[in-house]
């Protein structure tokens, strides 16, 4: 049994600049209709690079037992 980690952006704070999308090494992030960032939970490995990049600090890493 392992742990699944993935990034969760806060759509209320997100400025949809796309910095996270550019930084993501797995191309797991897209900007939904220019409104906010959306993370593809399938692709995301929870590395946290986007968390460090986001200028609005709106991304959190969530963890869950699988």
């Amino acid at each position, binding site marked *: 049994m392992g742990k699944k980690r993935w990034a969760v952006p806060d759509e209320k*704070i997100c*400025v*949809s*600049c*796309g*910095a996270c*999308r*550019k930084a993501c*090494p797995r*191309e797991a992030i897209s*900007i*939904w*209709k*220019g*409104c906010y960032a959306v993370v593809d939970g399938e692709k995301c490995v929870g590395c946290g690079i986007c968390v*460090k*990049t*986001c*200028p*609005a*600090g*709106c991304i959190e890493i969530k963890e869950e037992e699988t």
Partner: protein
Amino acid sequence: MKKKHWYDYLWIWEIIYFTLGFFNILFAWLGMIEFLLPLLIAIIGGNKAFCNNFCGRSQLFTKIGADCKCSRNRPTPKFFYSKAFRYGFLMFFMTMFANMVFQTYLVAAGAGTLRETIKLFWTFRVPWGWAYTAGTVSDWVAQFSFGLYSMMLTATLIGFIVMVLFKPRTWCTFCPMGSMTQGICKLKAR
């Protein structure tokens, strides 16, 4: 490795733009592309492809701030990405833009005279006369160039300051164009 696209090099365009304006202020008009294109993409396409892919300024901040490690990389203070500040700054910026257009109008109407200066941070006048030979074009065309170049340079300088202090792309959190295009996209997506 992710594939590099042609638009990943638009930070070079940003440097070219400011260099051209240093030698001939009339090139400042090219800045209208950076002003109208994001709006058109947001209004017609309903997305932020400009911010996400084509913005040379943000790429320059990433290049210098992240790749050249010229940023402290500290969290941006909450204040900067609060709705109040973002929309307040947008309104302030648009007011200043309208003021700049009005100055251009005054010169066109003959009520004002052309001032060959760049105004930084909407306060400090910097002589810029070498970049323009009087009489080359109508005075108002030159006046608008000086005004637009001032705005572009001020925006970039503020961006650089917050890049050094906080994250490379902190400017993006309160960029007037970003706030405006996101606002349009949110209205469209409803």
